[in-house]
């Protein structure tokens, strides 16, 4: 008997059930198909403007910095301003994200490299697929558009997010991922990011920049 079957048998024996019980199978299938929602905090259930404001407030509470630009074309300049304000070199790495690619980076002095990071980049720029206002959380997905390494290796991470993509709660973001990738399917990595990296392991003192980015800058577009 395989390890798999042995484990399933032990579980069934303990529960006092049979594996071919149609009633039990129906219940499980129903939950996996129906994906029922539970309790959704009222906190994030707000009209658009208040939702974006909540997102901003929650993100700032966890030491992310937040800026906003009226249109996507303003993004490269907002990034340039941020780099200058923090004495960072005008050099960033991003993926092949079409939204980012279409922007007027050449209008700034920023040197843009493309692809995954190998650890040699000071600044990474990503485009979030969504966000959850309830905790100021960004949602990023893996792939050539926004390589996951950009979320972790550079010391500074700048993330663009469309104001319309800021949902009130996690469930709404997951529903949009389902719509994009199909039911029961996710890309290799989905990162929910809430503030810059931190640790309190040394005598409970909170410090930023443990292994991931020390700085997280969010630019809300639109």
């Amino acid at each position, binding site marked *: 008997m395989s390890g798999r079957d042995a*484990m*399933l048998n032990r*579980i069934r024996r*303990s529960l006092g059930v049979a594996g071919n019980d149609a009633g039990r199978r129906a*219940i499980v299938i129903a939950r996996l198909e129906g994906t029922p929602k*539970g309790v959704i905090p009222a906190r994030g259930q707000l009209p658009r403007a208040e939702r974006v404001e909540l997102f901003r407030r929650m993100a700032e509470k966890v030491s992310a910095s937040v800026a906003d630009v009226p249109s996507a074309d303003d993004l490269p300049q907002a990034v340039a301003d941020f780099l200058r304000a923090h004495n960072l070199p005008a050099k960033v790495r991003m993926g092949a994200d079409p939204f980012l690619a279409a922007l007027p980076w050449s209008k700034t002095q920023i040197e843009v490299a493309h692809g995954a990071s190998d650890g040699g980049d000071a600044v990474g720029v990503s485009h979030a697929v969504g966000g959850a206002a309830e905790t100021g959380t960004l949602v990023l997905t893996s*792939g050539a558009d926004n390589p996951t390494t950009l979320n972790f290796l550079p010391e500074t991470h700048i993330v663009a997010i469309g104001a319309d993509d800021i949902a009130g709660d996690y469930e709404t973001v997951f529903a949009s991922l389902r719509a994009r990738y199909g039911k*029961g399917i996710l890309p*290799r990595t989905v990162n929910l990011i809430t503030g810059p990296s931190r640790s309190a*392991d040394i005598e409970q003192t909170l410090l930023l920049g443990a292994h991931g980015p020390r700085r997280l800058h969010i630019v809300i577009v639109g």
Partner: protein
Amino acid sequence: MEITSPAFKENAKRALRDPHLQQALSHVRHNFIDKRQKAVDGLAEFDALRDSATGIKNHTLAHLDLYLEAYEQKVTASGGHVHFAETAEEARDLILKICRDAGAKTVTKGKSMVAEEIGLNDHLEANGIEPVETDLGEYIIQIRHEPPSHIIAPAVHLTKDQVEQDFRRVHTNLPIDRDLTEPSALLGEARTILRRRFLAADVGITGANFLIAETGTSVIVTNEGNGDLTQILPRVHIVLAAIEKITPTLEDVSQILRVLARSATGQELSVYTTFSTGPRRPGDPDGPEQYHVVILDNGRSAMLGSQFQDMLRCIRCGACMNHCPVYHAIGGHAYGAVYPGPMGAVLTPQLVGIDKAGHLPNASTFCGRCESVCPMHIPLPNMMRHWREREYEKHLSPATVRYGIGFWAFFAKRPRLYQFATRWAMRALANRGFGRGRFKSLPLAGGWTKFRDFPAPEGKTFQQMWAERKKAA
């Protein structure tokens, strides 16, 4: 890890006399508790979410076999491999084989209590593979050759000065005169050193907070980002998790996530909550080439359908130990096992046997604070009592306890005899304490009078006085 739970009393004595530990523990008391309270007060739906999360876990456990099947199917469909380990030994060997097949020399590790439970690091080292802990707290205890003392803050028992001493002792390539007084300097040093290890690792091993049946996804939560660097940089990603981590859907995970960080550290959500599904896809510029999940039983399937099933709802938040007066006094190492505090007191006898771990469920006042803050409503004191019942049935309780309780119960079941005996006993005790009001020492009560005075009784018993009053009336 070497289990020293039988020596709990000696461990506890040592812990009470340890000034570094006591200083470190003084932070635990109010940091974790106050932060959690603030987070709980800030979310009106918190209690409703606890109920929802509890219901989801109960439902899942009742259908665990079927959700496990669904999970395995999805992992395989996404290009991953699922391995089933009944024992710690099987899990160790499975992981070693995967590492050997990958030609691994170094392995980075995200924080995993299950890896600690199966003694993975020692096994890898014994077989010529170097495991590198990357969670800052785990890294610190690794270089000290110590086990973790808390399930989410493994180095909580250490002071900053101790950490500085260890860094100086181990990081010998760095200038001796460097300034490490600030915690941020220590963090910076660890970051630089571990960054090199992250980039050089052949295999990355993480635990999992959830294994999602709907999508075949493993979820980890960290604040540092070390778990992410562990799983996306090496060629091979191994997830090690026990069967109770299976959770049906993304919505179900959302429910539990909302109570997890708030209960653990008082954060609204951990900085990095990462959902990983299979190896890298065609077109992915980064990510592992191989994805393996090793699912461990190690005694948990036996808990299903038993008095201890509720313990499988545990999401390893640590709130119970953060609020426990016993843990506050002695810290985590005194428990002598992988899992300390109230949840450890219930789980450890299952993992290593009640004969070895008997002290743990006994060293509790049943104050109930753990249960009151548990996000999954686990009746921890009741389950500790069940272990005491097992001990009693097996005649494992110390003779003094059996005879003492038996003696007391003999009289308690016979009210007339009880009243006769107690009148005599209380009069004798009151006479002995006459004029002083209390005893500084008392035969058979050494455990009490070593540290406290023993108040003298009034003299007559209430029943005696009540009977006298009724006769007089």
